[in-house]
């Protein structure tokens, strides 16, 4: 409880955290509420209203696409999907990364050396190509996208957590606990884990925009989220095909994507200042 409260207090005092965090929360609220309020739905095609530019009449705030579907509702759906995929993927990478890093750091010695050598090896690979290979080999489905993106982004987390654990292990309070006969398991849970929360929060915030990038990259290439579902990457792809006649179809999802990524990156940077968690680079 006290840990959570002190984290919250430090976050509240940072203007950058509140600003970028507030914008993201606002955007998510609009993305969830917007489609409920709008008279249109994301599937409804309307051949009398093809490629209509943004206007306030008829509640076509963002205009329509080349099939006459309402772009506001589709964009908001895209925001929902993009953020959802990113958060789930980040949790996947969080679990893998923290478990891997904590074990390597706590066990130490030769096990640590081998585990980290493996991470170094994986670092050298252009991972996105493997994700694409995975998407080609198996049918594209939601679950696979989550897992694939999560499996890509755990390396940074593993490195950071390992470094942190390694230094925590040598600290006096851990040694005192060990001297008192506390078991390893209990030391990890009671003494090491709470001290990892800061860095983990910072790196999850920085992992989310990376996951968004991967997801939208795949969807842009037509390998990610499939029609009639949509994501910001898929909307940008559709916008590119129509950009000469209907530039709003490109500009609106592109702007939303850029704003979301910018907010997450600023939030991550600001959180790093809040926790004063410098990376292990």
């Amino acid at each position, binding site marked *: 409880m006290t840990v959570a409260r002190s984290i919250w207090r430090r976050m509240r005092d940072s203007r950058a955290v509140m600003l970028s965090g507030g914008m993201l929360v606002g955007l998510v609220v609009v993305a969830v509420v917007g489609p409920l309020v709008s008279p249109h739905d994301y599937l409804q095609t309307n051949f009398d209203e093809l490629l209509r530019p943004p206007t306030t009449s008829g509640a076509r705030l963002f205009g329509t696409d080349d099939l006459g579907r309402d772009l506001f509702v589709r964009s908001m759906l895209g925001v929902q999907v993009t953020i959802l995929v990113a958060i789930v993927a980040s949790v996947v990478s969080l679990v893998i990364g923290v478990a891997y890093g904590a074990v390597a750091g706590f066990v130490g010695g030769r096990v640590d050396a081998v585990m980290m050598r493996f991470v170094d090896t994986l670092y050298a690979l252009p991972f996105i190509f493997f994700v694409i290979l995975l998407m*080609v080999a198996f049918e594209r489905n939601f679950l696979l996208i989550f897992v694939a993106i999560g499996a890509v982004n755990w390396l940074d987390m593993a490195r950071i957590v390992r470094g942190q654990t390694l230094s925590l292990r040598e600290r006096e309070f851990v040694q005192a606990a060990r001297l008192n006969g506390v078991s390893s398991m209990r030391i990890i849970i009671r003494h090491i884990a709470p001290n990892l929360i800061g860095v983990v929060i910072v790196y999850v915030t920085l992992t989310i925009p990376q996951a968004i990038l991967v997801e939208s*990259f795949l969807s842009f290439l037509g390998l990610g989220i499939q029609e009639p579902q949509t994501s910001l990457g898929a909307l940008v792809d559709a916008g590119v095909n129509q950009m000469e006649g209907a530039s709003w179809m490109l500009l609106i999802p592109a702007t939303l994507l850029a704003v979301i990524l910018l907010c997450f990156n600023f939030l991550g940077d600001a959180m790093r200042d809040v926790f004063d968690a410098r990376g292990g*680079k």
Partner: protein
Amino acid sequence: MLRYALLRLLGAIPTLLLVIVLAFLMVHAAPGGPFDAERVLPADIEANIAAAYHLDEPLPQQFFRYISGVLQGDLGPSYRYRDHTVSELIGAALPLSLKLGAAAMLLAVIVGVTAGSIAALRHNSFVDRLLMAFAMTGISIPVFVIAPLLVLLLAVKAQWLPAGWSGNEGALRYLLPVIALALPQIAYIARLTRASMIDVLASDFIRTARAQGLRTSTIIRYHALKPAMLPVLSYMGPAVAAILTGSVVVEEIFGIPGVGQFFVRGALNRDYTLVLGIVIFYASLVVLLNLVVDLLYAVIDPRIRHR
């Protein structure tokens, strides 16, 4: 130095092997065969096709056939472009992709290092803040958003530059793809350079150089630049990977017949061998370039060699 180089080279071999095994297993664990999408064929024809592509052999045998081919530079036949091998396809498309990638990398290093150094010299000034705001934006906006926006602004609206690849001649058509590829890397390198340059400029040997009355430009060129470049140099490996990834999108958007476009086509057509071949080729390229970067690192920073 030679010992170090040889050790690092040996270290790259398991990585490359891991790449090939991982990629091969992924493709072969896939449900269904490469020819499933087409109409149903009589059983004996299907058996003939399987035999022609050695798909009827047990997996270990297929793997050894494949890997001995890879070692000889043969990545197998393409499943879709029937008359061509994967190696032929990559070989035909590679020069163009290499030109684009190298140009983007050069641009990224030159502009990124310059911008980062300027920001570091004017630490906390307006110029610094402006440059870093640009850099943050550049990092945040993905290539597949930057590229179409550049086309929309400079080619469709202003009509200064050609929008597409085909139908245009000359060096001008390289400009937009190269800029689109380089922008995120410029941003990243500028941030890296700024951070390390600020560190270096605060160190004792720079203060000594200042105390001797050397001009700022001399200090930067002869004393600060080399140590400040170390983090940038170690970013070169990931930068190559990022530019390869970006080239997939950029080639698709501009319609450039490079390796990236083959990759996307292959992925959408489920051309297993082509995709597998390109993944292995690109991964090997990245691993080897990482090796080169490591060796350069040891050249610039002598402390590395003695570890």
